[in-house]
């Protein structure tokens, strides 16, 4: 019983961290229509930034500043934000698939940078030696995991509240206006370039927060953590949950991550011995089917965006 609870706590922590990332992507894609194909770059910048700032010194590597943990996490978010600002200035004039391709390229470049720059992030071996905050006091058992989950949940709820407020504000209307028709928005005196950049950086800072928490939880990050698969997973969560709906983003994260892990567990338990070796492949097929099915029959996601008419100029039908 305690084992089940312990596992569920672990599962919920990872799912909540991913949910924060999906919320960040939702601001970019769901609300503003920015096709960010390089989610992992900002996620990774947050993870590496946090661990470099908060870790202990390693031979021949930058970092080990041993900053107070919240500062390190903020630093990780700032790293992601700075990266997004630079990338945004260069690429945000691009639209749709062009933006997707260029951000995807940036994510691949970021992974290669981390793989090669041994002085920066430990190279392909990854960055280790990070001490989880308060570990000395709490140990690293069940109690620690519970408290860590609570912190992540609080951060997730705060992110959610922040985004709900943001989207309901006049700024949120601007985002949707730009998403739907940029020319019309400009004709009303809005400056799309600046607003797009603001949304892109804000979303990336949230992705960086998720990355920072991820690195903290594992006390380790390596280039293997920031492969394009993660971008795909986070996108799948948003598509299934419902782009443009923050509740949908959180639901999608829990559902897809749940399906991903539960299918692995169920196959390892119930599939016949001969099929055991193929469970990985079967799992890929199952998850692919779910996503394809979703796109075919419910492309708006489980919880679709609710269109809000904030100042109705016509009578409601």
């Amino acid at each position: 019983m305690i084992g089940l609870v312990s596992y569920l706590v672990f599962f919920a922590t990872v799912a909540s961290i991913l949910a924060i990332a999906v919320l960040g992507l939702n601001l970019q894609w769901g609300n503003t229509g920015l096709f960010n194909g390089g989610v992992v770059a900002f996620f990774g910048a947050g993870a590496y930034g946090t661990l470099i700032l908060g870790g202990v010194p390693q031979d021949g590597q930058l970092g080990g500043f041993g900053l107070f943990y919240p500062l390190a996490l903020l630093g990780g978010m700032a790293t992601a934000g700075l990266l997004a600002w630079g990338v945004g200035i260069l690429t945000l004039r691009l639209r749709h698939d062009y933006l997707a391709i260029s951000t995807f390229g940036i994510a691949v470049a970021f992974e290669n940078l981390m793989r090669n720059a041994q002085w920066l992030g430990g190279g392909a071996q990854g960055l280790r030696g990070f001490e989880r905050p308060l570990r000395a006091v709490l140990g690293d058992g069940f109690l620690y995991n519970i408290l860590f989950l609570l912190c992540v949940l609080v951060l997730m709820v705060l992110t959610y509240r922040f985004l709900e407020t943001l989207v309901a504000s006049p700024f949120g209307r601007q985002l949707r206006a730009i998403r739907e028709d940029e020319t019309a928005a400009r004709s009303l005196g809005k400056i799309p370039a600046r607003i797009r950049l603001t949304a892109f950086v804000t979303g990336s800072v949230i992705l960086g927060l998720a990355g920072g928490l991820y690195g903290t939880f594992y006390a380790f990050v390596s280039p293997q953590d920031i492969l394009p698969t993660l971008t795909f997973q986070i996108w799948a969560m948003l598509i299934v949950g419902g782009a443009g709906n923050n509740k949908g983003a959180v639901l999608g994260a829990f559902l897809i991550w749940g399906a991903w892990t539960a299918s692995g567990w169920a196959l390892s338990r119930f599939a016949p011995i001969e099929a055991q070796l193929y469970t990985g492949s079967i799992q890929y097929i199952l998850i692919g089917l779910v996503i394809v099915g979703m796109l075919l029959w419910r492309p708006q996601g489980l919880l679709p965006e609710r269109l809000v008419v904030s100042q109705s100029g016509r009578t409601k039908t």
Partner: protein
Amino acid sequence: MGVRNMKRCNRMMVSTLGVAMGLALSAGAAAAQDCTTKIGAVLPTSVDWGRPIAETAQFVVDQVNEAGGVAGCNVEMVLRDSQVDPKIGVDAAKALVDLDGVQVLLGAVSSGVSMPILTSVTVPGNVLQMSCCSSSTAFTKLAEEGKTKGLFFRTFATTGVQAAVGAKVAKDQGYKSVAILYKNDDWGQDLQNLIAKDFEALGITVTSATAINDGQPSYRAEVTSALSGNPDALYLGLYPNEGTAAVREWLSLGGTQHMIMANSLKSNEFRDNVGLQYLGKTFGTDTASPRVASADSFVAAYEAKFGGAPNGPGLANSYDATMIALLAMEAAGKDATGDQIAAQVARVTDPAGTPVTADAAGFAAARDVLAGGGNVMYQGATGNVRFDANGDVSAPAVVWKFSEESVEEVEYMSLTDVDDFIASLK
């Protein structure tokens, strides 16, 4: 007799019947054990070369069950796919530890997956982790800092052996300067760092060390920079695909045919694609070729079971990882925890212990010795495995060169030779 009594009576009959049937069934099973001990495995079964590693581990479990199981119980290996994704691998490991209650975890293959499993699952959960194939030197450093709590072991000889023997070849051939081309991953970067130090210790100049990324259409830029130092020889820490491309460019640009290569290029495909006529002055190094009967018996048993030689990466290592873990479980007795099992690893890999072979009979023999309080020297598929204080293994080494048939051996270095040579470099 009321209805309720009747019902209870019926229920009792049914349950008695169930128990009787269960007994009959279990009595019919080959190894009549009334309990099951689970061990966990997190391996990349969705990758083509990962599947045989898992099959080999399952093969060991079958052999041990044939010999009567561990501590009087049948062993069940719960296999989870890591998908070479750290998140997935860690989650699978956590599920195995928490939901299945395993005390022994086999895996993972990639260092990038094994490491977070170690730091966030097995060390906090006090579970023995035995990896067949993770080569990163980061584990050694972590162990030196005392952060593995002695719970991590691996049967894959550290890259140090390969690097040292490569440097020895350069010295024996009288090369004064060497250029290095290495694969740009954790293995390649480790190898490059280590061998550069070894060359330096032997007084050989490293003219350049160039990283080779996978899947590039051409390596002209990298090869040119390696050529620019005009080295006596070229060291290659590459895999066949990019190795073929890089060596072709190297030779066509007039690079020397004096080459030294790691075991990853020991492939007939590489030889044929480059051309044997250009490889006459090339030497290779390898680790896993011990001169003991147990290694041959592993090959024979593997061929009998799977109908082919164990040629894939990590198979002998996977076999030994699984067998040593199970022997340690046997030594630790029933319901032992991960740290108790880890403490027994030294007892089953004791160089002064009674030698046992790597098969069902060997396991049964080991059980008797251990029950009598003795120690065992496990003679495995990779030889007489012996862990150091950090859970690392050393290994015998061979120097080889390509031949018409496949490869031929030039020199064999026993475990002692290797250890002595490495010590002489320090």
